[in-house]
């Protein structure tokens, strides 16, 4: 092998000026900025339709906020376990890393289970009885599109985190990949914080 070829193998490809650690991190940030625009469009659409409507329900009265407040708590906790997982793998503490990433995955799965429970009750009883079901009021449409879009992101995050856990266990992924998966997971948490406020509390 010529010296030039060796140089080529060992040298890093051109470094990104924004995230010197990895190109993947920049890629994830750009994806999240675009994804935030989708959520932003849905949330703004929700707000404007609500503002234009003469008989919009008081969400906290119709939806109930106790369960959702607990779901918010669950996602925030799973964000904390995600940063603990990253911090553990950076220290080289693999058992700690696996424990915390497992807890993160369980938190996400628990959130999805509670959301499924909430939806079942809303669709079956609460919304039809309050007169705000799918076919009668835009409230149901905007609510299910917004929380459903977020729920799909949580589903994606649970699958993503599971794949990262498997790949790290086999030594194919490292701290760099966990950090990028963490960015996605924290973003999902951040969006839920906004949805909880704009859709449930206001």
């Amino acid at each position, binding site marked *: 092998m010529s010296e030039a070829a060796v140089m080529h193998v060992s040298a890093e490809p051109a470094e990104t*000026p*924004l*995230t010197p*650690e*990895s190109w993947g991190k*920049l890629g994830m*940030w*750009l994806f*999240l*900025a675009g994804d*935030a*625009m989708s*959520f*932003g*469009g849905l*949330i*703004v*659409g929700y*707000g*404007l339709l609500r*503002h*234009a*409507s*003469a008989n919009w329900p008081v969400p*906290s009265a119709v939806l109930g*906020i106790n369960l959702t*407040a607990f779901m*918010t*708590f669950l996602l*925030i*906790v799973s*964000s*904390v376990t*995600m*940063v*603990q997982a990253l*911090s553990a793998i*950076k220290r080289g503490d693999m058992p700690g890393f696996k424990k915390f990433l497992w807890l993160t995955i369980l938190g996400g799965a628990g959130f999805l289970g509670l959301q499924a429970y909430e939806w079942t009750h809303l669709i079956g009883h609460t919304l039809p009885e309050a007169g705000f079901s799918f076919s009668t009021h835009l409230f149901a449409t905007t609510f299910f599109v917004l929380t459903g879009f977020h729920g799909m992101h949580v589903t994606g995050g649970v699958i993503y985190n599971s794949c990262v856990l498997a790949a790290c266990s086999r030594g194919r992924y*490292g*701290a*760099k990949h966990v*950090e990028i998966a*963490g*960015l996605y997971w*924290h*973003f999902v*948490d*951040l969006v839920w*914080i*906004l949805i*909880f*406020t*704009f859709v449930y*509390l*206001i």
Partner: protein
Amino acid sequence: MATTHAEPNYMGVFWWLLALTIIEIAVIYMPIAKLIIVILLVGLALTKATLVALYFMHLKFERATLGWIAVTPLLLCLFLILMLSPDIHP
């Protein structure tokens, strides 16, 4: 791959997020004008979102340009509100 910044106090951020969530829930039961409640809630929610972005997503320790990329969606939201509001007749 090695990060140069010290690890932020993650548990501190967690307690802040928890406290602000409890304040948010308390705010909606307060006997004050609806407009003030909405302003408080939006402020609290944006504060929580900023905490998550700055500390959990490490935006505080990244290059400033990455921060500008992160806030572009807010500009789009502002644009949408300004462009669509004239069509809304409550």
